């Protein structure tokens, strides 16, 4: 049996680890709340935008614009979204797996480039030939330091320009989509070219006056909806990150608790054994004196 001092030291170290993990869990829970609020805030905007686009597509063919052009896939841009920090379970690894699968398998022959949002994926691709960066994006690459629509719009715009300039023929976003605090799902969404949406409300709203004209509005709206799509990915990833960290830290705290209980048990056993030994020695000594 290990000696008392050793066990005591381990108990102290496990306890302090537990304090850290439970504090991190609390912090993540608070941040998760805020991240979820951000998603809820964006929902009405995204829904309304889709609705207006839906109304327009009832009377206008949306597929005739620069962002819908389907070309042979020779150059692919993959936008990978991870977190800046670790200690969140498989959160980042799932993205790494998906991105490397896209780079090394699916788009192997399509000169895949990876635009890295979040430090973790940047660390992985920074030194490879696949790393992609340009001046516009460089200014806002550390997106999670200030996660705003404006900053994410810069990235979306740069990707759109590169697509229109035929630098890339396809743009894919890989991110963790938020399901609930405990679960997230890795999604690879095609941002460009736009996949034409099937119009559901057939009657549309033909009564609208369109100012200045339908096609101008469409040209104005499509970049917007792309920006919203990327922003949604970022917000989802952000919320997923905190959810994943919360779950990971919760498990860590539970494990530490178990460990501590076992250690306390063996500590008490060792202590009891030491006391018993001492009594035996005293009794033995007394016997010998009386003898």
């Amino acid at each position: 049996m290990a000696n008392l001092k050793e066990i005591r030291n381990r108990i102290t170290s496990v306890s302090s680890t537990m304090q850290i993990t439970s504090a991190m869990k609390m912090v993540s829970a608070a941040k998760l709340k805020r991240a979820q609020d951000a998603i809820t805030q964006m929902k009405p905007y995204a829904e309304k935008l889709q609705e207006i686009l839906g109304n327009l597509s009832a009377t206008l063919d949306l597929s005739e614009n620069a962002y819908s052009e389907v070309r042979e896939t020779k150059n692919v841009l993959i936008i990978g979204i991870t977190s800046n920090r670790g200690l969140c379970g498989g959160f980042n690894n799932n993205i790494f797996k998906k991105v490397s699968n896209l780079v090394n398998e699916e788009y192997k022959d399509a000169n895949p480039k990876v635009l890295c949002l979040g430090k973790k994926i940047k660390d992985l691709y920074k030194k490879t030939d696949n790393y992609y960066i340009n001046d516009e994006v460089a200014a806002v690459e550390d997106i999670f330091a200030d996660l705003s629509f404006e900053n994410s719009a810069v990235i979306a715009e740069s990707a759109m320009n590169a697509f229109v300039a035929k630098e890339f023929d396809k743009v894919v976003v890989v991110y963790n989509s938020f399901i609930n605090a405990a679960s997230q799902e890795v999604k690879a969404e095609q941002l460009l070219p736009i996949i034409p949406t099937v119009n559901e409300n057939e009657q549309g709203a033909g009564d609208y006056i369109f100012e200045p004209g339908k096609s101008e509005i469409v040209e104005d709206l499509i970049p917007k909806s792309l920006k919203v799509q990327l922003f949604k990915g970022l917000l989802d990833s952000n919320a997923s990150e905190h959810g994943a960290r919360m779950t990971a830290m919760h498990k860590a705290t539970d494990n530490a608790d178990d460990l501590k209980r076992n250690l306390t048990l063996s500590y008490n056993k060792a202590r009891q054994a030491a006391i018993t030994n001492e009594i035996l020695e005293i009794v033995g000594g007394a016997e010998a004196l009386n003898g």
Partner: protein
Amino acid sequence: MQLEIITPEMNVFSGEAEAVQFPGLDGSFQVLTNHSAIISALSKGEVKVNLTKAFEGTDGASELIQLDKSDNKVIRIDIKGGVMEMLNNKVIVLAE
């Protein structure tokens, strides 16, 4: 009419308005109550709202709302572009 101004990040304003002036792509225009259904793209500029009653302030995003100095029923909101839709006396502005 009911007016709502939303951005991807927050709800900037919602309330009753008498008239709203927008920076349209082809120049400024104003819609009054009972205007027919319209969808319009907006450019960078200022949305001027004539409220039905004095502005009381909203919680949250009020730093985007500027009060008119001479008239407490008029507020102005700067936008970088967007789109507005009006249907059945309900105006929704998707601003940036």
